[in-house]
């Protein structure tokens, strides 16, 4: 199999069109199962009470929000080294979903912080570095849309994301490196912070659902971007003719 083939928008456009409904369906099914476990089956937390159930959306949004930035950095490296057009388009397709999930991580964290810590906001290392991640997403999008010349915009965006992706491990390890109010990792292999299997499975399914959602959104968005950028190419007419 020639992987380079899929680096071309020509071949990726119809492929993405075939794939996204599967990811969207999976996201829906996983979310239904995950919400059922998280909201109805999982027992109440013995310390926090019912409010801990924010966990089932807070952790998935945070994890996927962070990881999407790393995926963007990966595509950024491809865009700069192999000069593939699709890589830059994938970055642009990933960014809005990553930004929204990061914003939701902050919002849900804030609403969780108030009843458990007594404050909506605190400038601790994890929360501050997550806010920085949101600004980086917005900054990337602003940069890419501000530069007229698309090739230059792609290069500048890729460079920004690669360099600033150092922030992601900083967020991840912040709870170990600094004394934060934010608790440590809820799902560590060694620890048993989440004791009940229904809690663990609920969280796992919701995280997977969030992943599948992000992939589906990215695939739909990259198709729109391909059309916007290369709509005048002759091959697009063929792709549209076979499947809109």
């Amino acid at each position, binding site marked *: 199999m020639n992987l380079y083939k899929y680096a071309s928008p020509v071949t990726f456009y119809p492929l993405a069109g075939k794939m996204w409904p599967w990811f969207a369906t999976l996201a829906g099914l996983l979310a239904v199962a995950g919400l059922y476990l998280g*909201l*109805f089956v999982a027992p*109440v937390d013995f310390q926090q*009470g*019912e*409010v801990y*159930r*924010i966990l089932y*959306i*807070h952790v998935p*949004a945070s994890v996927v929000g962070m990881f999407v930035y790393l995926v963007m950095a990966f595509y950024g490296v491809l865009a700069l080294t192999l000069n593939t057009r699709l890589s830059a388009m994938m970055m642009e397709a990933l960014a*809005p*979903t990553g930004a*929204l999930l990061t*914003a*939701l991580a902050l*919002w*849900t964290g804030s*609403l*969780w912080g*108030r*009843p458990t810590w007594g404050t909506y906001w605190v400038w601790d290392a994890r929360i501050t570095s997550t806010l920085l991640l949101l600004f980086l997403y917005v900054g990337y999008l602003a940069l890419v849309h501000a530069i007229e010349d698309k090739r230059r915009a792609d290069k500048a965006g890729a460079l920004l994301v690669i360099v600033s992706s150092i922030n992601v491990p900083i967020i991840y390890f912040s709870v170990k490196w600094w004394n934060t109010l934010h608790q440590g990792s809820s799902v560590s292999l060694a620890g048993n912070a989440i004791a009940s299997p229904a809690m663990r499975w609920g969280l796992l399914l919701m995280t997977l659902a969030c992943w599948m*959602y992000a992939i589906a*959104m990215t695939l*739909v*968005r990259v*198709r*729109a*971007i391909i*059309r*916007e950028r290369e*709509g*005048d190419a002759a091959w*697009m*007419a063929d792709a*549209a003719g076979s499947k*809109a």
Partner: protein
Amino acid sequence: MNWAEFFSMGGRGFYVWGSYGAFALVITLEIVLLRLRAKRAAALLNGVKS
């Protein structure tokens, strides 16, 4: 379990449903906006074809 009890979330309903509600609202908004963008992009293409 009764539903009133479920929605009250032990008196923390505001925080729990404020989180879940915002989540649902944001992803619904993203889906709607993305559909609009995809439609606009498709129209762009049809304009080229005709």
